[in-house]
């Protein structure tokens, strides 16, 4: 039956992100390239991740969820900000590290990608895909390598006999399992899951979510779980951060965020999600936002959500709201709540 699988995450912080900015320059001119502006994909993101915790990162397309993950992992070079990772007993700064400088840390920080079709090399066998990280770090070779790969395949629910097969011989769900096995190969602490189930059908999606939940429990993994499907995020996460235009507008424990959202954007977002129950659907009040997300390349003096916000005030156009404390571990960035303490990382 449904037994509680949500394990309590420890209070030990493993990753600290502070004021992370990722601005992509917009250039003009052919001979004399000059910067005429910047797309502010990530614009001052701060959060903490605890050991064994699942932090959901949600928001609409273009809000900077994936860019945040990639900037943390130094797959992009962040414009500014700090990313500190607790490596053993010491805090290590990741921001500004070169590819070579990141390499010893990549073992601990892995990623699972959205598209199980594009993220696996079609010319490599499953065995070599999953075994590659082990080879790069000289952790195993020959028979030992094959055994490690087979163990990993078993762990993620793939038949180890398929070790010689190629990715095209697998379905979408199975390919995502291959991607997960590859991420697990080096026994990481943190896995960034970038929309790991959005390319899958619902019946397969549930298989992968269950797998991720089990692995997390068995291996005490922390996930940063990026998805646009708020139902999936609620199911898997301990805490959830809502992003809008490159900023976190609200962050709270899953139950607080979904049952007592504070930021008008979170409220609208939650009300827009259809519930598979016609009776509830008939009764629900929907906050229909007008308009579209404004351009991320324009610098605004006030709140980014002001142009679409149903409870907008004059102050919202002139002052950028900061993440303030609503209740324990619940922060929202909105001028409607001016009293709480500002969030510290």
């Amino acid at each position, binding site marked *: 039956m449904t037994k509680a699988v949500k394990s309590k995450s420890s209070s030990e912080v493993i990753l600290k992100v502070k004021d992370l900015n990722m601005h992509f320059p917009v250039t003009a001119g052919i001979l004399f390239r000059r910067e005429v502006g910047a797309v502010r994909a990530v614009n001052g993101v701060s959060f903490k991740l605890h050991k064994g915790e699942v932090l959901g990162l949600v928001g609409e397309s273009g809000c900077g969820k994936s860019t945040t993950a990639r900037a943390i992992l130094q797959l992009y070079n962040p414009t500014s900000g700090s990313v500190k990772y607790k490596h053993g007993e010491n805090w290590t700064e990741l921001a500004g590290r070169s590819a070579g400088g990141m390499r010893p840390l990549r073992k601990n920080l892995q990623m699972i990608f959205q598209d199980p079709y594009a993220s696996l090399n079609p010319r490599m066998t499953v065995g070599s895909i999953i075994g590659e990280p082990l080879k790069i770090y000289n952790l195993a070779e020959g028979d030992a390598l094959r055994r490690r790969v087979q163990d990993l395949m078993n762990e993620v629910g793939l038949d180890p006999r398929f070790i010689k097969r190629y990715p095209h011989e697998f379905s979408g769900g199975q390919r995502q399992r291959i991607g997960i096995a590859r991420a697990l190969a080096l026994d990481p602490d943190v896995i960034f899951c970038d929309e790991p189930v959005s390319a899958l059908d*619902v019946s397969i999606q549930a298989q992968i979510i269950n797998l991720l939940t089990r692995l997390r429990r068995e291996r005490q993994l922390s996930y940063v779980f990026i998805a646009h499907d708020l139902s999936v995020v609620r199911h898997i996460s301990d805490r959830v951060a809502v992003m809008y235009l490159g900023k976190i507008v609200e962050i709270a424990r899953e139950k607080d965020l*979904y049952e007592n959202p504070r930021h008008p954007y979170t409220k609208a977002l939650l009300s827009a999600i259809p519930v*598979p129950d016609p009776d509830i659907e008939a009764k629900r009040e929907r906050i229909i936002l007008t308009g579209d997300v404004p351009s991320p390349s324009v610098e605004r003096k006030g709140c980014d959500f002001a142009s679409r916000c149903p409870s907008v005030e004059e102050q919202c156009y002139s002052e950028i709201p900061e993440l303030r404390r609503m209740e324990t571990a619940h922060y929202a960035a909105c001028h409607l709540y001016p009293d709480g303490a500002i969030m510290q990382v």
Partner: protein
Amino acid sequence: MSRKKRRRDRQQKKVEKRKKKAQTSSRSSRRQAVVDVSTPSVGDKGGADLENARGASKLPSKPTKKTRGPVILKVRNLRTDFHTPNGVVHAVQGMSFDLHKGEILGIVGESGSGKSVTNLSLMGLIRKPGVVTADTLEFDGQFLQNLPDAQMRKIRGKRIAMIFQDPMTSLNPFLTVGDQIAESLELHENMSTEQAIKKATSLLEDVGIPDPAGRVHQYPHEFSGGMRQRVMIAMALACDPEILIADEPTTALDVTIQAQILELLKRLRDQRGMAVILITHDLGVVAGSCDRVIVMYAGRIAEQNETRPIFKNPGHPYTAALLKSIPRIDSSGKGELHPIEGMPPDLSKTLVGCPFEPRCEHREASCKTTIPQLQAHGSTGLKACDVAWNKKG
């Protein structure tokens, strides 16, 4: 129980008789088969025999719960096969359903279940190596199958319009949105360019695009995803169609924009009284928007019913399993999800039993060998399942 069984036996006999009849009449002329709905000539391979199922169970032909408009589209035993080098893929295997005026009919199913192919077949948009056959494809008294291309073109886009999934790639980047909307008006309604652009402007206003007079002269790249989908809808609505087929109209969009578009579709349905076929894989969208639902699995109807009973009293184990497998936004349940183990079947193989049997938790020995026919479920529904797994049903 025994009465039910007797009824089923009787039904089976009827089907067999028909099969014989069809064989002996050695391919009566196509036209005849088309007009005579009561003799489905290819009703053998588990073709969803809607008439038969309804007749046998003494169902009222129109459920009385909601006053629904007259039938505008009647589909019987629609089949679409793709002849590929690796064998024939039976993408749609005998779909039968009615679409009523003014209703939103949801078609749900996973990828590859045949939702989109069904509707492309209706629109006559299946090209080689695809082959579409049907006993009846009746739209407002006209038979669509075997209709010459020239006549089909007069219906397509004018009386039956379609919105596609991806608004980013379905618009021509070289033409202004006004030109693209005007195209069908000039073609179908013989409007002058000036008139057509004027109409296009008012259509853009109808679908909620601010500053329509200025926007009508802009190119698709100047619109956001949600706005482009609105343009697509405006285009589809240009000739005031009687049927609007929306193929995953919100899948590529964000949830807040999805809510806007679904609201718009419902409003337009109310204002214009058109029938909408809404293809989606999102059961939440179905619950909020549709009047009636068809659940498809492996190219067949697994179940069809009004929206509420689909969710409250599903007739097919597949529907029930789908509902159990999705996490819900309104519950903090951290329990394990109940995935449907296994994969959908290979559609190029000939079916010998229930297509869902290998994944079904209520399967019985007979499911492997008999293809379940559509049968009554509750007072309004039809299900393709022979097992009495649902006590309420």
